[in-house]
């Protein structure tokens, strides 16, 4: 539960940063923070107290038959959120990297890192 709240807090902090900071880099940092928060939330959702990791080892014997399979599933936490998190981290990383690349190029073309300097197109 604490983890969940932490995650949500991070999301809010990140979003806040994205909304209020003017510097592009800070916005990107805000985004990264938000991304981390989301990942934490995901993990928190997937985690069930007292269960083991969804890895086939001794704790989860590879059983034959349907009944045993269900038993085995019962013992581990849901692996799907974890898998999601892995993917999400990758994607978040890619987006963050791309954003940074953008920031560099924007600095080159606009000579500024202030997002307020990039509002020529409107209406």
């Amino acid at each position, binding site marked *: 539960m604490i983890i969940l709240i932490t995650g949500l807090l991070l999301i809010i902090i990140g979003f806040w940063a994205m*909304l209020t900071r003017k510097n592009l880099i800070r916005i990107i940092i805000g985004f990264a923070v938000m991304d981390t928060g989301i990942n934490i939330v995901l993990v928190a959702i997937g985690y069930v107290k007292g269960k083991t990791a969804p890895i086939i080892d001794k704790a989860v014997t590879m059983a034959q038959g349907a009944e045993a399979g269900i038993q085995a599933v019962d013992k581990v936490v849901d692996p799907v*959120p974890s898998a999601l998190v892995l993917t999400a981290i990758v994607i978040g990383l890619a987006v963050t990297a791309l954003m940074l690349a953008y920031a560099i190029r*924007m600095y080159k073309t*606009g000579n500024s890192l202030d997002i307020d300097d990039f509002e020529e*197109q409107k209406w």
Partner: protein
Amino acid sequence: MVNPLYLIAVFLIGAFLVPFVDRADRRLSLGVMYFSLLYTASLSLMRLWQLFFTNGNETQVFTAGFQPPLSIALSFGFKEALLTFLVNLTGFLSGVYLAKKLGKSGVQSISILLLLMLGANGLILTRDIFNGFVFLEILSIATYALIGLKSKKNALAAGFKYMMAGGLASALLLIGIAFAYRYSGTLNLDTWGRLLIPMTLGYKIALFMIIMAFVIELKPFPANGWALDVYQSAHSGVSSLIASVHTGAVLYFFYKLLPLMPYEFLPLLAGTGLVSFLLSNLTALRQKNAARLLGYSSTAQTGLLMFVLTGLYRYNVHPSLVLFIAGGLFFTNFIAKSGLFWLAGIIKEKTTEKWSILRKQPLLLVLFGVFILALTGLPPFPAFFAKWEIIQILAQQGGWVALTAILLGSLLEAAYLLRWFGLAVRQNSDEPETASLPYLKLIPPLIGTILLFALSLFMGSQLYVLSEFMYFPLLALLVFSILDCCPLKLKGLLLVAAIGLWGWFSVWPRLMGIGQLFGLVLIGGALVQVFGFLHHKGREAGLIPLLAMLIFSLGNLLTASTKLDFFLTWEFMTLSSYLLIMRGKSSHKAALSYILFSLGGAYLILTGLSLMPPFSPGMAFYLQSGFHSIGLVSTILLGIGFLIKTGALGVHVWLPDAYAEAENEFTSVLSSVLSKAGVFGLLLVLVMAKDVLAANNLLLDALSWLGVFTAFFGALMAVFQEDVKKLLAYSSMSQLGYIILGFALMSHLGWVSGLYLTFTHLFFKALIFMAIAGVILRTGTRNMYEMGGLIKKMPISYISVLMGIIAVSGVPPLSGFGSKWFIYTSLIEQGHYFQAGLAFFASAIAFLYLYRLIHTVFLGQPKPSQQNVKEAPFWLIIPQAIFIMVIMGISLFPNYITKPISSAVSIFIEKPDWLSWTGYNITLNSPVLHGNWNGNLVMLVTMGVFGFPLLWLLLINARTQKVKQFNIVFAAERPYKPWTTHFAHNMFAHYNKALGWLITPRITAFWNGVTEWSHSLAAAFSHIYTGNGQTYLLHIFMYILVIFIVGGIR
């Protein structure tokens, strides 16, 4: 069965392969890209083939060998196949379009393009929500990267804004998926859909977050500032990809998610869609930047699609119909929008104002026109059928709010799109010639056009309208477009022959009664006037095809047998006449107001038609056999719709400008023939609404007053015109007022008068307009006071106008008096005394403008600048000669016209006993009114009393000296300048002093106010787009919050 995995695999492999082969040769990597795109497109096509012909019904493919909950499922059914085909084809075309750019900007961009296609394909194919997320992210990242290709500051800023928005959306999506997963335990959409999960608040919120993430990706108004910036600043090829491929894929996934959503979300989503549609279109009104304009249009269309997908569930519509509608809208938008973006890239002009360089490029112009008209929802393009079906559903099931919003939005969209079209077509610009066309870049829009037409035929065939009503006008357009390189006279004569044969052998036998009369007016009248067009020296590209389309549509209007046929034909007519008006020299503004009023009218007609019983035995049928009742609302809507076409008072604003600015000969057709289509429609309504009207006397009274006021104000406004065509335009309006007045009586005599006037108005108005066309052609001006004394130069034209004005004014002995006699007697007979009085006033005012017309143009002082004016060309004389003969004929023998009209009318309203013909004497012996008129005798007496004085004068006046223009008594002075001696300008100043206050343009001011007001509103709305990425982020956040609160999700 084609494995959909191939689609993904091909792109993946391609994307990875490209950097390697690029080392060898850039062309090789481009080749890989084209191969991947073409190959996937052909795979989709094969799949389509399979589904159609081998009836393979298995569509799901599971990866990793597990059943759904454990594995990711891909679905490759009909929808997916069609969509991927289109997406990949568009991708390929974009590749072709971007070839130069891609070649320059390096291998990474090729890779990214392939990745983008991968994401799009995956998003379409996958049935797993998380997989969807992944593909969405791939798609988005690829898009970001592509936007970054253009290293302009604006593009980069837009990309960054987009990334911020996309980041927020994906965060939402991810959280939503995670929470939803807690409730469902599965990520597979099919499994999920089958689960019956209790709708707890948490679950709902999770679902809300998921769907809102996609809604945000679909760029709803007003949370779409970032998207507009992207559209505006990105490379047009990329914009086109975003508008078509990206939006298409996301939309499809959105559609796939819908079954999961609780029902209470659907109206919410539908509402957001509608709001987005309406307000985006409104905001676009003020937009001058072409790319941004397209962006607005794109978001609007997406909004409409959202509404269609989510809103129509309420109305118990069969899902396949929903798909049909959505498909129609989607494909039109898909192709047309990408096509327009491509064109925007070719034109390279940012503001819509500068698009007039298109005029020099006929091919581009045609493509542009096709895309614009397709987006506007005009037939034969798929959006037309979609809109037809939507309105059918909404109108029949009472979705009035949605219906109003959709029609209003469509009208706004038409307004800015067609204004743009007008700017491109206008002739009075002097743009320099553009450089040679990039032919490679032309291929994509060309293929898009072909695809659009193919889809149109497909959609049409689905609605069973692939009858002559659809293909005759189109075929005519096509055939004569191919023949367009022939000399004008040959084309024209071919057209006359084609229509003559078609009319005689195909249309005429199917008509009877009033239908036949209108057949004569619409087809015959138009046919005679075709000759008038043939005097031009050049080829007049585009004239004959459009004219052919128009006349075929007019013929079809009479024989249309279903509601859809009727409306389709009506829209064809509107479209072709709009394009014909556009041919005028500076007509783009006039044409815009014409098409907007016409579309407004058409939408009313559409709604009215939708309210009619669904299984009606055919429209024109009513004019032949029995009555068929329609409801009150339908009556009013249809009535107003047709009245707009006739140019009744209040909605006449388009009329003078359109008449004045169209080509001179076409004005004649507009006035004499096309306005009769509105009359035909009105008559149709009156026939069908007999029961309603019997119950509501007020309606008919209102109509008759409307008619007489139209007649009165039309005449009064005509008096003060300096422009000869405007004068005649208002005169036409006035005459149509009489026709409306006649029909509004709903009596035998009233209808006879209306039809009689319909006929005679055709003859004399076409006569005058044709003669004036010759005059304008020869003098090169439309201002009457710049002409004068042309009787000596153009005697035949003078005779035409003389006959015309005698007939218009209703002076005996010519046929015009018949219409006056009929109208007054029928009015008095029906007890409409005051209308009769006002109508009499109007007809007296007609003398003022008619005298002004003939005096200022033909009499008075000839101008030195027109010293060498010749008689009008032979081809213009032909229709005049025909009409003069007809007028003389029916003046001498009025029975040939009055009797058929009476017998045709008597099918609907029985001929009363007291109306009788003895020889040429029409006798009226009604208990309330006696009267008679013997046109033949009047003519003979007049000829007699005219002949004797003439002989006397010839006898006694042996020594008459013929003198010249300045041999006038000028108070012992001599005149010096013909143009100051000619009393012409502001001829009725005293009348203006006395009655001018009546015609202060209040109605025009009202419509101008509407325009002004909507533009101000648009400006106000557009100011929410501040250009700041953070503000946009806030918009999105607030938007979601507001929807959440408004939706009241509990």
